[in-house]
């Protein structure tokens, strides 16, 4: 019986391929005879129909809030520079090597926090707007939820993303553990401009200070120009209310700019005539140069891309077809082009893009590759609509001090060895 069924499969496959068949009619007749013979035989023997165990039992009931398949081991990578002393100071990086598409699921959106995640009661939380305004105002969360909303897709990237790719030797860890301080979500809220206009910004105001209600009271200075342009008060992320790690109940969102300027747990906005020079815009998040000086207020995140599949610590099972895929983005606007090289940058080919119409959002790129089995060096290089091009690693490193950690947007290299293993390399 089994043999007959097997023959049928082969015959049908052969027919579909359009192989030469001199007597097609008799061929079909013979096939039909085999099929009916198999059916009759199985009925006669009362053998069970084909089907896996889960097809033979009633399935699970509903859940209130979904979970991934139990076979999928997905989770963030932790970076905790102070260890158990301050487990919520540092980052939980998005597992970009396990994701595809453009949107980062909320449970694995990267987290960067300076003093952990506060447990905020939305009934007690307030947002204040004061300083150089005509009318200092206080907003309850319920009040913020009443403003007419907009929905936009934007990436967020910590400016310390990819600092782990600046160690003296290339770390052999998954792509997300180095480059996963990047995520992309659909944000819903309303323009910050609405609240600023309600408070009445005075002409002397040129900046604002945004401050969180975490125990670090993380604060950053924001130029008024950005606040009145595309800055958002965000309340929802990918359709649901913000999660605690992402700033519940309300966060600021500054598209394309250093992630920590999108202040989470937003409690206060003070209009000022200049920058406040907070700890996180002087001692940190400044870009040290080789001559001892440092760049300050480098807000925009540079044009960048990284191949997520295949990537560091993966192994190609066999030679032949492999899709090279990854993510690209630019804080300046739209990604215009992503090129892929499989020979360490000697030759480049243009990848297909998904999502390139959206400014300051992730773009997914894909490139079909036939792996010969020889060693290969995979790289990607993004160009944005302003003509900014992702720089080679050696050029980027030469530009900064040896201990700098911010705004590393240089080209990432994955070496494929002849056994298929993928290594992180500096090239």
């Amino acid at each position: 019986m089994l043999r007959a069924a097997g023959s049928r499969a082969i015959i049908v496959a052969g027919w579909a391929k359009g192989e030469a068949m001199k007597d097609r009619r008799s061929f079909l007749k013979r096939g039909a005879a085999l099929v009916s013979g198999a059916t009759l035989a199985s009925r006669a023997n009362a053998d069970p129909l084909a089907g896996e165990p889960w097809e033979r039992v009633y399935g699970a009931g509903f859940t209130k809030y979904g979970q991934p398949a139990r076979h999928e081991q997905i989770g963030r990578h932790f970076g905790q520079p102070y260890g158990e002393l301050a487990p919520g100071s540092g980052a939980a990086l998005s597992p970009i090597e396990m994701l595809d598409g453009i949107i980062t699921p909320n449970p694995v959106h990267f987290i960067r926090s300076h003093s952990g995640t506060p447990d905020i009661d939305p009934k007690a939380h307030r947002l204040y707007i004061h300083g150089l305004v005509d009318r200092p105002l206080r907003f309850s969360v319920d009040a913020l939820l009443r403003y007419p909303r907009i929905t936009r897709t934007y990436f967020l990237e910590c400016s310390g993303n990819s600092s782990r790719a600046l160690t003296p030797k290339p770390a052999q860890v998954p792509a997300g553990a180095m480059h996963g301080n990047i995520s992309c979500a659909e944000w819903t809220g309303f323009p910050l401009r609405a609240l600023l206009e309600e408070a009445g910004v005075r002409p002397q105001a040129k900046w604002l200070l945004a401050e969180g209600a975490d125990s670090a009271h993380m604060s950053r200075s924001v130029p008024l120009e950005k606040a009145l342009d595309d800055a958002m008060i965000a309340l929802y992320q990918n359709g649901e209310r913000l999660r605690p790690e992402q700033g519940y109940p309300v966060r600021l969102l500054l598209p394309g700019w250093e992630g920590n300027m999108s202040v989470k747990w937003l409690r206060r906005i003070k209009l000022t005539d200049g920058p406040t020079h907070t700890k996180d815009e002087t001692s940190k998040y400044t870009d040290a140069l080789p001559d001892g000086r440092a760049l300050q207020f480098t807000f925009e995140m540079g044009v960048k891309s990284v191949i997520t599949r295949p990537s560091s610590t993966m192994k190609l099972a066999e030679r032949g077809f492999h899709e090279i895929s990854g993510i690209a983005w630019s804080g300046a606007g739209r990604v215009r082009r992503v090129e892929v090289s499989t020979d360490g940058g000697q030759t480049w080919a243009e990848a297909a893009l998904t999502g390139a119409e959206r400014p300051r959002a992730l773009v997914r790129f894909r490139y079909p590759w036939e792996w010969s089995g020889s060693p290969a060096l995979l790289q990607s290089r993004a160009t944005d609509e302003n003509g900014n091009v992702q720089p080679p690693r050696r050029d980027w490193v030469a530009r900064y001090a040896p201990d700098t950690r911010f705004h590393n947007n240089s080209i990432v290299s994955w070496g494929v060895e002849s056994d298929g293993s993928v290594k992180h390399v500096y090239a």
Partner: protein
Amino acid sequence: MSTRSRIAVAAAVTLVACATPQRTEAPPPRFGEPVAAAELAGFDISIPPSGEGLPLGSGTARQGLKVYEQHCLACHGAQGVGKPADALAGGVGSLATKTPLRTVGSYWPYSTTLFDYVRRAMPLNNPLSLTDDEVYAVSAYVLFLNGVVSEDAVMNAQSLPQVKMPNREGFISDWPPRRN
């Protein structure tokens, strides 16, 4: 105008109205509540380089040592050498070398940032707990460790913003951005 032509005009207006996206008549919402200065005072903790907003109170490094030993030393080490948390002192002159040490003394451009940050975020497990006198005193101590002020210099709302940090001129503002 005859009744018939009035109906025709009305119908035409209706058609135009239907063809045009409906414009809202609602004014922009205003849900903010007025807030009194007294309520804001407790939240208004950011201190710019001018020192505007610094509270009353004062302290010296000699007084700050006690605050430091009680609240800071366990993480920042004796005399601010660091470990497990960031080093607070030393490194002056190291920024252009191959092993830069970035501390309050060697890197931070403004003394006001030190007061601001200690008051808003430290100690890590009990922020907003130090008195303003304690914050002035421990700020004075960290500045003293870096050789920026003397052990008995009184730090207060007037004197703290006057302290010139060694790396005051070490930063280049990238805003507004330089375009290619």
